[in-house]
């Protein structure tokens, strides 16, 4: 607990406010919650009863496969590092895409939108959307007869 004296000293206005819980719950929520949850656990348990033998069977081979994969990747990276000059290596579009996907959670969205705003769109290029749509429709197996009849 925070000593009132301390709170009074650093925040006199806050210390005057009565400590209250402003949040409410629907009637009977806490009475019903354990039953609702145990039911969910029961369903999950049924599923696990089926999955557990499979997991037990596949777990050791999967662990071995994962270990081999890690060693293979480490080996590949070491060899690549040893035989490369380490300067200005070109990245393939796939590598860039993988990198972005991996780090996408750390992307600053504000910066992303700023960059998008800065990209100039060449409005002089005239795209014939009508032609593209017609080409697309011709490529599909559309029953024109029935469309015309319904119009």
């Amino acid at each position, binding site marked *: 607990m925070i000593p009132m004296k301390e709170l009074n000293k650093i925040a006199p206005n806050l210390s005057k406010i009565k*400590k209250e*819980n*402003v949040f409410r719950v629907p009637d009977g929520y806490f009475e019903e919650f354990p039953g609702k949850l145990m039911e969910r656990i029961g369903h999950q348990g049924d599923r696990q009863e089926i999955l557990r033998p499979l997991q037990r069977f596949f777990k050791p081979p999967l662990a071995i496969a994962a270990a081999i994969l890690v060693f293979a990747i480490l080996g590949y990276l070491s060899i690549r590092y040893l035989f490369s000059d380490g300067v200005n290596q070109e990245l393939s579009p796939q590598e860039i895409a993988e990198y972005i996907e991996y780090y996408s959670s750390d992307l600053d969205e504000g910066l992303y939108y700023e960059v998008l705003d800065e990209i100039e769109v060449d409005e002089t290029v005239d795209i014939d959307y009508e032609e593209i749509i017609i080409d697309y429709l011709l490529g599909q197996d559309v029953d024109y007869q029935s469309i015309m009849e319904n119009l």
Partner: protein
Amino acid sequence: MSGNRDKELLALFKEKESRNYAFNQIIHTYQERLYWHVRRIVVLHEDADDVLQNTFLKAWNGLDDFKEGSRLYTWLYRIATNEALSFLKKKRKRVLIPDHDFENSVMNRFEEGDYIDGDEIQMKLQKAICTLPEKQRIVFNMKYYDEMKYEEMAEILKTSVGALKASFHHAVKKIEKMIQED
């Protein structure tokens, strides 16, 4: 709940026949405290309900590996905090809210949510709390409302007592300033 009662329940949980009974007791004991903790983080009741269910599901799945050296209460609190934070993170990504706008979005939740009721001064305090950065808001709520010891908070949030004290101090100062300004 005493440590001895926790030990008893953990022992019962290990037995197949008493597993459900023991877990039911654990839910009854901790559900309210965990609910209010989660609710203060996610604000809306429906979200708090989801997070609380996920918290107990994780506890059910992880209780076999629970190390008896740690306390059940802090372990559950840690799961609940992490669940609530990752819930907000997912929600933020889904609606594409940039990080710097997130405090506003928490406040919006507060203004639009059901099952929230308080007088003017209480609402002013809640809005001030909503303006705090996420971690600072959690520290403030745990200390101010849950009245937790810094040592317990440090165990749950995996940080130092000093950092928590500083964080709480900053939060209080900011809230005080906001209350004064209005």
